[in-house]
């Protein structure tokens, strides 16, 4: 007879002294872990609920401006520094860690229309309603010096926007035409126009640095190549585009913030259909900025809210609003991709977390592991109706909520009408136009 009994030595399973850690032997055999899926589901449900409980995105409000904030700019080298221009011509530089204004400049008479920093971070440019372009030093004046711009360029017409080249000492302004300037000269290197309308914004491509995009009030978006003296091509949409923003990771993708409450992500190579139509706002979209990862962007709207969209989703994943925030005019995603800043009509700049329920500060390794595990679980069970409902739930102000309902009814009615038209006409005579193609009027090369 050969016999062996299961006989464990307790010393192998119990800690020696109370100062030791407890011993936890593991066995990953699925038979010892029954109800794996239902338990994971419950964990995912709990994680989703906790995410909503901890969703407190609002961090700070920076007040000090005496008029609506019209434009924002990030410092390229310093995460804590932010520049803002107001409607009364005042430019303020803020320190985000202290949440304080560290410098105030009366830069222009009338609006500050645009502000941008030089790629090296030593100076910045502003354009205003007083037809001037001014270059300022980033550091304040020394003791006893006066606050003065480094250079001032007096133009003939009003400039409405400015953007700096990402690598060279060149910047572009827009107004009646798109002007490209050398920093050392007082005349533009070249001016480009296509049509005769005021251009509201111009943006350099951060990857293909010679490319520019601009949008004008005659409903078109025009693309330029700086190396040629003529524009490349343009796309005409249903309504006016307010701003565009290039994707910092994919050279040929840009997103346009449109007056028809939608955002359009275009591929520069095929402008006839947008890659994605992002709709959730209930009023004109005024500004858009990409996250440095290029996976998401944030949009500011006239409906007093900002929304975060993934680039491949047509619906927003997040909406931020407060009772006191009025029409949001400008928005920026910070370079560490953790925070969002928005400047609004009622003179405040607000700082938000990009991920509403994220815990700030240093995480211990166990916290990090738990966070990663919960994230994976949420991802795995995201399509289950109960979890989906909780994850999607957002409180909205009454005005936005009722407008969403109203617009849903309008959209349904339009669709029904179209369906009826197709049904009662000769088959094939009324084509079905997809949502993407509906909003593009023409592409001109």
């Amino acid at each position, binding site marked *: 007879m050969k016999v062996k009994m*299961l006989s464990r030595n307790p010393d192998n399973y119990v800690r020696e002294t109370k100062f030791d850690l407890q011993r936890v032997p593991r066995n*990953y055999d699925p038979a010892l872990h029954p109800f794996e899926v239902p338990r994971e589901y419950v964990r995912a449900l709990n994680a989703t609920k906790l995410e909503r409980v901890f969703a407190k995105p609002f961090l700070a409000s920076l007040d000090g401006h005496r008029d609506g904030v019209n434009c924002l700019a990030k410092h390229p080298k310093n995460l804590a520094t932010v520049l803002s221009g107001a409607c009364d011509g005042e430019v303020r530089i803020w320190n985000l860690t202290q949440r304080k204004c560290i410098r105030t400049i009366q830069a222009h008479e009338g609006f500050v229309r645009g502000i941008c920093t030089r790629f090296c971070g030593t100076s910045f440019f502003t354009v205003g309603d007083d037809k001037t372009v001014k270059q300022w030093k980033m550091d304040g004046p020394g003791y006893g010096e006066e606050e003065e711009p480094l250079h001032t360029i007096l133009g003939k017409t009003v400039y409405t926007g400015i953007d700096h080249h990402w690598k060279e000492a060149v910047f572009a302004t827009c107004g009646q035409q798109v002007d490209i300037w050398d920093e050392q000269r007082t005349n533009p290197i070249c001016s480009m126009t296509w049509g005769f309308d005021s251009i509201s914004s111009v943006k350099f491509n951060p990857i293909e640095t010679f490319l520019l995009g601009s949008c004008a009030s005659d409903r078109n978006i025009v693309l330029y190549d700086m190396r040629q003296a003529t524009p490349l091509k343009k796309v005409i949409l249903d309504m006016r585009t307010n701003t565009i923003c290039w994707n910092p990771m994919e050279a040929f993708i840009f997103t346009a913030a449109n007056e028809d409450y939608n955002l359009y992500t275009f591929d520069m190579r095929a402008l006839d259909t947008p890659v994605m139509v992002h709709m959730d706002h209930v009023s004109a979209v005024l500004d858009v900025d990409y996250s440095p990862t290029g996976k998401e962007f944030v949009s500011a709207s006239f409906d007093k809210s900002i929304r975060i969209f993934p680039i491949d989703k047509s619906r927003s994943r997040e909406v931020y609003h407060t009772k006191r925030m009025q029409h949001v005019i400008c928005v920026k995603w910070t370079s560490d991709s953790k925070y969002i800043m928005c400047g609004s009509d009622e003179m405040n700049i607000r700082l938000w977390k990009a991920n509403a329920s994220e815990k700030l500060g240093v995480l211990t390794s166990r916290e990090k592991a738990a966070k990663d595990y919960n994230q994976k679980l949420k991802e*795995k069970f995201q399509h289950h109706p109960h979890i989906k409902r909780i994850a999607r739930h957002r409180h909205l102000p009454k005005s936005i909520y009722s407008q969403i309902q109203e617009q849903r009814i309008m959209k349904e009615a339009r669709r029904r009408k179209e369906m009826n038209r197709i049904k009662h006409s000769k088959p094939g005579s009324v084509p079905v136009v997809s949502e993407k193609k509906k909003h593009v009027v023409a592409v001109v090369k």
Partner: protein
Amino acid sequence: METAPKPGRDVPPKKDKLQTKKKKPRRYWEEETVPTAAGASPGPPPNKKNRELRPQGAKSTHILKKSRISKKPQVQKKPREWKNSESQRSLSGAQDPFPGPAPVPVEVVQKFCRIDKSRKLPQSKAKARSRLEVAEAEEEETSIKAARSELLLAEEPGFLEGEDGEDTAKICQADIVEAVDIASAAKHFDLNLRQFGPYRLNYSRTGRHLAFGGRRGHVAALDWVTKKLMCEINVMEAVRDIRFLHSEALLAVAQNRWLHIYDNQGIELHCIRRCDRVTRLEFLPFHFLLATASETGFLTYLDVSVGKIVAALNARAGRLDVMSQNPYNAVIHLGHSNGTVSLWSPAMKEPLAKILCHRGGVRAVAVDSTGTHMATSGLDHQLKVFDLRGTFQPLSTRTLPHGAGHLAFSQRGLLVAGMGDVVNIWAGQGKASPPSLEQPYLTHRLSGPVHGLQFCPFEDVLGVGHSGGITSMLVPGAAEPNFDGLESNPYRSRKQRQEWEVKALLEKVPAELICLDPRALAEVDVISLEQRKKEQIERLGYDPEAKAPFQPKPKQKGRSSTASLVKRKRKVMDEEHRDKVRQSLEQQQELQQQKEAKTKPTGAWPSALDRFVR
């Protein structure tokens, strides 16, 4: 123990000094390895290749991963780069005799695989498909890793083997006790409790505690390993059944009238009057549900975490006194006097399934821990083992002289039956195989008729309650040797138990999720997907994902005549039509072949008895 010669010892000190001069300052623990590379190693000087040893190892694991699991795992594939060059040598000059990651047996990897690759999913978009592929690859990788971690398991299961020709069933407990070590021998004991008559017993989930209740009101709980008594009371009422709740601190006792809950001091915490005349108790640990079967024919689910009755189901089959739970999917099996076993979940008013098992009433039911086999015994003196994976067909049957009144499965699939005052144990081939009923593995005769049976979790022990008290039998190879410390730890401290309790309550599975397949929640919901698609087509009036009909492109130089356009169109249409026909033909042929394979007689000649073959 041999120690490696201290490097740098045989190097002349002058040289050493020179070298140290050249190098930047190092930590004292680094100094030991570095001079070996520089001075003492007979191999080539430390170049870049030498330092890349580890990444190369990593690369080879990558190759293994890509090639999926090797079909012949014991024969290791040696990547060619390992064989040839001297540069692959380690610092000491010796070659690694077992290069690359350790081989993993296929069966072990199979155990950890969760995704069923054979199942076809409906036609999905490219994005979803690629995501599925990524998930599958990840799953394979993790299952290989988990399989590799099996090497670290500390304990081996027990066994009992006879000399050639010797029948293990002839070996009596005294022999086993004599042969095994003292610690194991102490696990065999008898409690002589003749006064309060036949006992029911229950082990806690960790296998550390034992509770038993006598028919005449004697209830006790003890830490049976140290033999420390926790409480002992007499409830002055008949005790029908006894069960630990999620931890050893709570104890449910089915008394003559009502269900009572005691704590480990013997203090009565609750008397649940809504569960009356309860005959059997089952606790579902992950759902925190106490299932009670009563004389009145009701199956009642009590949520012990909030104290609410979740469901009270009328089985419509008279008195219920045969009950067991399926530990794999928390479905309750009830045995009835008409020979059927019905499967219940609290979410349904009707049974999930009814299985006709015996002619005459069912006396006992037991389900094994993997949820694949169910053993039943009936008044017809039959003992049957059923397959629970969809077919519900009996796998093996055996007629016992007296019939079994009590059945239980162990963690490793041993089946025990209590017949009068005899206990028989049958073993299968492996862990998940059904027990073979031909030859018993062990038998034991007790001092009174058996009234309750349970294998102790994580110990090779079988607890038997009978009219003469409690007997703890040694059954080598019954229990799972390696427990998981986070799931149920026999050696856990009080703090660990408290921590575990909070975690377990947080992930309490809702009662509505009990169904036959517990993995159904993670599968693609094909039915509602198709339904939604149908609704979308109805709403839109067209199928947005339908393939557009072929439209020939206009061609230059007068070749775009109407006739040629129609011709080209016709050509494509014909091609598609032929494809369709070919596919349907292939399908038909397959069906035909399957039918033929089914109807083919097993013998050379068709027999008259073939008509009874299912």
